């Protein structure tokens, strides 16, 4: 039995899908219709290992053990595989570079901590379900092996991204997931729209990648290393990693001010690109051209969460720059609102879900930007539940599309609950979760997000609420509190939380603030809270509009469904095969219970609080005992109920191609339907000038440069034309030429003889 230590298991998690991908590429043609086997086996094994790691890590953190009211201690395990690059004697200048020789070294190191293990489980498990689903969905497609190779490759890249312990490695796998996304969106590359959508996705992501690259440079210059973890050099000194225990324990470990804000803004840009936030969200709706399982995996559950992961991982960096932190929330809440507005008028089921994804990711960013431990854990909680119900919804949409023969325009079919009962039931569960209806998953996570926003907008009210909570006193939101209660105990090894006094100054205004900090005021937070509440209502509205249009009303099936036969009677639409419905059922179950289970046991919050990034004093000092916010729950449920009722009024039981509700919006409907003209603005501001530049360059190349070359070519032609005149064919002219030549020679000789 090979050594199954945690570090080996951690290496196995990305390794198994990689092996699966390689085997699929090598044996795909040979295996034929069984080409899914290596990929599915690899991802399944990887999921099993990830769950094992999660269980082990949970035990280590002490989740579920009672009587733990002390601050969480960071738990991490680092495995270094090999040294990828190393430049000795590199110099890093900057505020925090240690004066000891900072050699530039990039070890291929993986780090396991609660955040990573949570995401690993999500990625591999949802990836497994998507792979199983794809067996049915992609059946008969000529590119069947290629699809599974790409899915497997993607799972490998994403798991490495969340496990990597070095910013440069994160960048490498950031690009890798972007490349896999490009290949999967453009899977049917012979279709022009798919090829264009793939290009658009990749190019917009590149803008974000540029941000990440420059942020990496600045991080190296500021902190002297790119590692997350502390590394010890040969001479015994320790190079503190950017998110390593040494620096986390240091109250002044993170740089604020202009440089820190620049780093945070660039990281935010990268996250916006990958997670489709304003202004880089334009690629996600077009990415629906790819196969639905790819959309479910990449654009709902995993790749788009890479941005969330990056910001959450860099939590201490962000908290040191309150302005940038607030901007994260502003971007998130704004995107959530705008995407929700656009989603209300979409007629394509997958587009509704795409805008819904953008909107929910906006929620997660809004929560991350609050800078409190509650905010960070709520964002990850929402990430987990969103992965479940959004993948479920996408796969349900794929099931509908599969059985409707490729038609996904909701106005062309209706009343499908009689035709596809399992899909309808699971889709309904997913929609309830998305809309935030209790007790489904989305309710709890959305409630936590609203709570974190509320706590920033109304700090006093929130502080009272927590002080009266049964778990006892606490909370750094009250700066007067000196931590005399059981809240903070310096326990355990030296580099756990040593500082006792919560540092609220960081939340209030920053040590060395930058000009951006002006937006960090309670008024901003209140506005963001109300925006989020309105967005919750809109979410419920557009989700249930889609549900009612698709599954209720008179049963209508488009003609394409009749042509689509499964080798059976070739008759009209039917439910999808078990390979597609079983994952739906599993995810529906998870969407229903995971929220309640994770919230009631507070397991996720406790688990995540042990992440090193969240144990930094600036973040951990905002820890509050978990409490269920009844007022916010009521507000959220009310918003969702209003949305559902309005959707029902418009679409429940009616024909889906009847008069649409948008006529009530008037001119706004055009604005939403044209996606706020952002695509057109980009086309005019960016694409047109670039096309103009390209035309100018082409003209210059064709006429000036080629013209010069042609001109050079004409010289011999011209000279030849002149010489050609002498070839007349007449004997006497040739003789004349000879005589003239002879004359010239004689004259030259005479001239030389004479003088």
């Amino acid at each position, binding site marked *: 039995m090979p050594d199954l230590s945690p570090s080996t298991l951690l290496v196995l998690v990305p390794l198994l899908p990689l092996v699966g991908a390689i085997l699929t590429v090598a044996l795909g043609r040979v295996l034929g219709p069984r080409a899914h086997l290596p990929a599915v086996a690899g991802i399944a094994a990887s999921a099993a290992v990830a769950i094992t790691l999660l269980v082990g890590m949970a035990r280590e953190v002490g989740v579920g053990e009672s009587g733990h009211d002390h601050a969480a201690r960071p738990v991490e395990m680092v495995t270094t595989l090999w040294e990828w690059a190393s430049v000795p004697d590199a110099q890093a200048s900057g505020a925090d570079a240690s004066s000891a020789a900072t050699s530039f070294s990039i070890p291929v190191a993986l780090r396991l901590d609660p955040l990573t293990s949570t995401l690993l489980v999500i990625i591999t498990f949802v990836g497994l379900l998507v792979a199983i689903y794809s067996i049915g969905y992609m059946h008969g497609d000529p590119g069947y092996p290629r699809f599974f190779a790409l899915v497997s490759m993607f799972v490998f890249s994403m798991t490495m991204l969340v496990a990597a312990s070095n910013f440069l490695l994160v960048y490498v796998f950031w690009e890798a997931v972007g490349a896999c996304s490009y290949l999967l969106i453009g899977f049917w590359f012979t279709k022009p729209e798919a090829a264009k959508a793939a290009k658009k996705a990749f190019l917009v992501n590149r803008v974000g990648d540029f941000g990440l690259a420059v942020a990496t440079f600045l991080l190296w210059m500021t902190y002297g290393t790119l590692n997350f973890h502390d590394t010890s050099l040969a001479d015994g000194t320790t190079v503190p990693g950017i998110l390593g225990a040494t620096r986390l324990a240091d109250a002044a470990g993170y740089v604020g001010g202009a440089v820190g804000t620049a780093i945070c803004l660039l990281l935010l840009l990268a996250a916006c690109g990958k997670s489709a936030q304003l202004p880089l969200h334009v690629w996600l709706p077009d990415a629906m051209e790819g196969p639905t399982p790819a959309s479910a995996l990449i654009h709902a559950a995993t790749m788009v969460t890479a941005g969330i992961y990056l910001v959450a991982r860099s939590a201490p960096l962000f908290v040191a720059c309150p302005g940038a932190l607030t901007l994260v929330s502003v971007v998130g809440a704004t995107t959530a609102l705008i995407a929700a507005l656009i989603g209300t008028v979409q007629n394509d089921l997958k587009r509704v879900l795409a805008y819904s994804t953008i909107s929910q990711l906006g929620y997660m960013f809004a929560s991350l930007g609050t800078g409190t431990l509650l905010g960070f854990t709520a964002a990850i909680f929402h990430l987990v539940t969103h992965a479940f119900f959004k993948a479920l919804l996408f796969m349900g949409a794929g099931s509908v599309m599969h059985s409707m023969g490729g038609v996904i325009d909701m106005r062309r079919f209706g009343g499908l609950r009689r035709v596809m009962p399992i899909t309808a039931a699971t889709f309904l569960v997913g929609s309830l979760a998305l809309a935030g209806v209790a007790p489904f998953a989305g309710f709890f996570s959305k409630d936590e997000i609203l709570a974190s926003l509320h706590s920033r907008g109304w700090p006093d009210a929130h502080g009272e609420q927590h002080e009266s909570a049964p778990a006892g006193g606490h909370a750094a939101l009250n700066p007067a509190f000196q931590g005399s209660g059981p809240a903070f105990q310096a326990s355990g090894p030296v580099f756990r939380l040593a500082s006792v006094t919560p540092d609220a100054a960081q939340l209030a205004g920053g040590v060395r603030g930058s000009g951006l900090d002006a937006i960090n005021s309670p008024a901003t937070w209140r506005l963001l809270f109300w925006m989020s509440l309105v967005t919750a209502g809109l979410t419920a509205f557009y989700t249930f509009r889609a549900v009612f249009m698709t599954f209720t009303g008179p049963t209508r099936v488009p003609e394409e469904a009749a042509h689509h036969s499964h080798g059976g009677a070739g008759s009209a639409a039917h439910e999808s095969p078990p390979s597609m419905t079983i994952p739906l059922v599993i995810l529906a179950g998870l969407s229903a219970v995971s929220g309640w289970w994770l919230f009631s046991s507070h397991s996720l919050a406790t688990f995540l609080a042990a992440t090193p990034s969240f144990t930094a004093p600036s973040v951990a000092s905002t820890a509050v005992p978990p409490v269920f916010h009844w007022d916010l729950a009521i507000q959220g449920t009310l918003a969702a109920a209003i949305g559902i009722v309005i959707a029902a009024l418009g679409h429940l039981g009616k024909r889906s191609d009847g008069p649409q509700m948008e006529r009530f919006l008037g001119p706004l409907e055009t604005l939403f339907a044209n996606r706020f003209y952002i695509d057109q603005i980009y086309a005019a501001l960016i694409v047109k000038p670039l096309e103009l530049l390209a035309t100018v360059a082409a003209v210059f190349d064709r006429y000036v440069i080629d013209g010069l070359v042609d001109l050079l070519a004409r010289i011999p032609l011209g000279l030849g034309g002149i010489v050609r005149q002498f*070839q*007349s064919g*007449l*004997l*006497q002219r040739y003789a004349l030429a000879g005589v003239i030549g002879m004359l010239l020679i004689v004259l030259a000789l005479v001239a030389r003889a004479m003088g």
Partner: protein
Amino acid sequence: MTPAPLVLNGLVVGAILFALGLVGILARRNLIVMFLCAELMLQGISVSLVSWSRHHGDWGGHVLVIFVLTVAACEAAVALVFVLQAFSRTGRLDSAAWQSLRESNLPRVVDHELPAVDTVPHMFPRLTPAGIEPPVDEDALLEREQV
């Protein structure tokens, strides 16, 4: 030893003969006349050679002239055979008949048309030609098997 001015006379005569021959080759189109002028050039050279040889008192020049005369005679035989062959190919003794080795973009050199002498036109009966006249290829006209 002959006095110096006599050489000069001989050279001048030789030069005149040579020049006449040179101009003749370049200017005349008749193949036989061109050949005659070539012979004339040879004779001019011969005169110069004899003058120089008398001036230096060296028999070498005289001997070379004998060689030249011999060679000229052989050359005459060859050249006249060539002229005969050329005539039997084209039917003309005109060196301008041989132009087909010119560059493809250059036009054929034709003589200026002399104004026609105005004679009394004979009223010959004119028959309408039957069929289409084929296009006239000047070079092909000159390619006759025999005269």
